[in-house]
């Protein structure tokens, strides 16, 4: 109760949101601490200046604000991968969606970071589900974004994700944090996104073979451009199929310094993508990989990580016929680095990421591996190891105190720190809930309460 009073009590919500709070020395004591890579019973997590100071079993330092987490679970904030958080407000309202790009001359160079809205009402909702960081990706056909409820599926839009990209590359992903404030961008341009399989074939005229050829030719052009920029600017280079902005954006992909998120589903396509990556020296991250378990050893041998949704167990189309609930467990057992996704593009349903991890556990994934798959692993995959996604000295203080096992739907995120900043336990949804808490039939219309 003490904890609750602390949150809801005299400290105003405005004060909680203020960065000044981040200076405070705070110790979260007595809880079961999931560091992201290990478990500490009766642990103490100390944070200050936005970072984790220490994680262990010692007493709280003197002068620290103490949060009593006895009987509770303390975990790193979860990281939503393949997410649209901050980039789309209402899926069906096109003007509120800055994840989709239909311009032919801007494909690889499309940078989602410019369209992010720190005041999006999707962020507090995800946060209350324990999400504190997200990898925001542009919409891509064949991905998991967009609304595709069966009820609406005949008329929701084009493609599985309700969106058809005009080119091989959907654009570049960004990392965000979910703290309240006026800047959520952590790092722009952390990965390039490209659809393969059926969706990729669709971009290249209908056949997979055409896409692979086009992809290789594109990389050839990028390399040619990179070696001959001056000639290009003088107009002395042969015609290239991409715009200058796209050529520039693809240089780090072509030289292997920027990972390429490849949306791919069937086992046959995964094999081809692994071969392509090897031949071209491109660093890939597989996204989807529903049939990955069939070629798990090859993925592991290539050292390629996988972003997956462990509850995808139905053949939504003919490239996911072998999808199984055991995909996450099988890939993990083979030694593949996995990150577990939320649902429907992890915007409005990003908060379900933890349930998906729980379902992976009930289908054979070790519990520790499931926690890693929503904390440490995403940070590793996107080059942020040690900076967030785990409770260890020096990492960002993204700490959530849970009423119980965070993978259980019955558990509640009671206290949430992001970058050391305590987050107000509220959302637009909570305001609505509270307005109608008593049935909404009082003498004064509900509009008078807030």
């Amino acid at each position: 109760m003490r904890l609750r009073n602390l949150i809801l009590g005299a400290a105003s919500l405005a004060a909680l949101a203020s960065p000044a709070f981040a200076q405070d020395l705070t110790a979260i004591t007595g809880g079961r601490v999931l560091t992201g890579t290990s478990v500490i019973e009766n642990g103490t997590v100390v944070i200050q200046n936005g970072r984790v100071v220490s994680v262990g079993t010692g007493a709280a330092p003197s002068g620290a604000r103490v949060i009593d987490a006895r009987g509770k679970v303390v975990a790193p904030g979860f990281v939503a991968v393949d997410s649209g958080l901050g980039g789309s407000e209402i899926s069906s309202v096109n003007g509120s969606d800055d994840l989709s790009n239909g311009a032919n001359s801007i494909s690889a160079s499309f940078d989602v970071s410019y369209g992010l809205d720190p005041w999006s009402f999707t962020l507090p909702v995800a946060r209350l589900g324990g999400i504190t960081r997200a990898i925001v990706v542009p919409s891509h056909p064949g991905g998991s974004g967009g609304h595709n409820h069966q009820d609406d599926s005949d008329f929701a839009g084009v493609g599985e994700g309700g969106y058809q990209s005009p080119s091989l590359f959907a654009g570049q992903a960004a990392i965000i944090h979910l703290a309240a404030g006026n800047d959520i961008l952590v790092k722009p341009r952390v990965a390039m996104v490209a659809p393969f399989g059926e969706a990729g074939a669709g971009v290249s005229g209908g056949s997979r073979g055409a896409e692979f050829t086009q992809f290789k030719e594109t990389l050839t052009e990028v390399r040619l451009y990179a070696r001959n920029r001056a000639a290009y600017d003088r107009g002395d280079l042969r015609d290239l199929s991409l715009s200058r902005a796209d050529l520039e954006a693809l240089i780090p992909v072509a030289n292997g310094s920027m990972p390429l998120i490849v949306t791919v589903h069937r086992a046959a396509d995964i094999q081809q993508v692994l071969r392509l990556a090897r031949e071209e020296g491109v660093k890939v991250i597989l996204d989807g990989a529903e049939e990955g378990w069939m070629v798990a050893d090859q993925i592991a041998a290539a050292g390629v990580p996988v972003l997956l949704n462990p509850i995808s167990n139905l053949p939504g189309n003919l490239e996911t016929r072998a999808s199984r609930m055991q995909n996450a467990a099988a890939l993990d057992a083979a030694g593949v680095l996995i990150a577990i996704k939320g649902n429907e593009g992890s915007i409005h349903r990003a908060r379900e990421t933890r349930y998906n991890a729980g379902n992976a556990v009930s289908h054979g994934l070790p519990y520790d591996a499931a926690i890693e798959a929503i904390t440490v692993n995403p940070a590793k995959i996107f080059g942020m190891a040690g900076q967030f996604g785990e409770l260890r000295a020096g990492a960002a203080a993204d700490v959530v105190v849970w009423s119980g096992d965070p993978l259980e739907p019955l558990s509640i995120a009671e206290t949430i720190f992001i970058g050391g900043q305590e987050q107000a336990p509220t959302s637009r949804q909570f305001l609505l809930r509270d307005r109608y808490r008593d049935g909404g039939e009082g003498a004064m219309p509900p509009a008078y309460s807030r």
Partner: protein
Amino acid sequence: MRLRRLRGPSLAVLAVLALGACATTGTDTPAADGSSNAEAREPLAAGLDYAANPDPFPSTYRGLPRQNMAIVGGTVFDGAGRKIENGVVIVTDGRIAAIGDASTPVPSGHQVVDARGRFVTPGIIDVHSHLGVYPSPGVSGMSDGNEATSPNTAQVWAEHSLWPQDPGFNTARAGGVTTLQILPGSANLFGGRGVTVRNVPSVTMQGMKMPGAPYGLKMACGENPSRVYGGRNQSPATGMGNMAGYRAAFIAAREYKAKWDKWREDGEGSPPTRNLQLETLAGVLDGTVLVQNHCYRADEMAMMIDLSKEFGYKVTAFHHAIEAYKIAPLLAREGICADMWTGWWGFKMEALDAVEANAALVDAQANSCAVIHSDDAELTQRLNQETAAAVAAGRRIGMNIPEERAISWITLNPARSLGIADQTGSLEAGKRADVVIWSANPLSVYARADQVFIDGGLAFDRTNPAYQPVSDFELGQPGFGASAANVPQGAR
């Protein structure tokens, strides 16, 4: 009596007649209605008089082979709000014979099923499914759920689109789902009839069709119909167009029903021409077809209630009732079920005001009917978890929601929402023995359905491949027969 005569024999009676041929193995349904089909008049040519054969695609459902049994030692949530520790559930001839505490006697000859350390609930009922009509794979040629060709397609029946080989039926069963209502989509004001099925593998739709279950009519409010038809420059293009469309249809249905009633009564002149669209709407007016109304917003639900009063029918359930919590007292007073998600929101404007505590707030009203539904082949596998998330949202604001009560949101309340609560939905003596034995508390993410019984027949067993059915479609597909992480295909 005019109503009765128009309606003809109840579906339940017909179902029993249909079952007669296989009554030795099937689970039969006692007739709830003793009405007679006797008509003095010379019958019309086959197919021209609804009353001559109101069940033209009759159920051929036969229960799976079954055994009398006693499920003992588990924690039982009976679906009707009761929790029994160390409970005993007696199943005899496919029906619940008794339920009680450890002192409940086990009849001799009953197989004892050890449920110690496990949980027992009624089979889960999903009131909003498109399995079979929007099946997996959702590829060209398989999208049969929306007859989006006219705002009123009350004449179409979802059962005529239902592909029984949809692998989604198997995965739903592995999640404890024993009964589903398969509905048409929501493109139209009147999408057509839904059908309630028993979740058993079957070569034919009729083999799954639940004997005696009333038909539902899928109606849709809001954005979908006005978007679909407004986009074609035809009515409805707006919310007011939607309302005008419903009203015009029910005016026509009233006239149609009056013509038939008059013709039956005085027997003069030519009989009315049978019209399948109006026939379904007339079924709504006489109460034999239940209104299953897709409707997100509170203001629209309130208007649909008034509309139902204008024409003299009842709304049985509002589906996707995102804003039910705003009018929870009204829904309770009207006796209308609110069929809801917990976590879905924000995919369109009418889904903007969703709250996770929706079910908890609806349930808090006396005489309410809160239901958690799926509309989704994945979510239907985890309705227990969707319920848990709703419970957590209620508890967060201090509501005391016992687990045994929350289980009714996916068992007894959906049975009420489908008009089959006398048949299933709770573990009460006399009802169908639709039972799930869970490995753990079903509100836990780690709980798996260990065994699923439908009418007392073992339909799924998580540890026995002999009871893990595989649809024809799944045979010989990529990965078929291979184990993933040491788990065989059947438990996909």
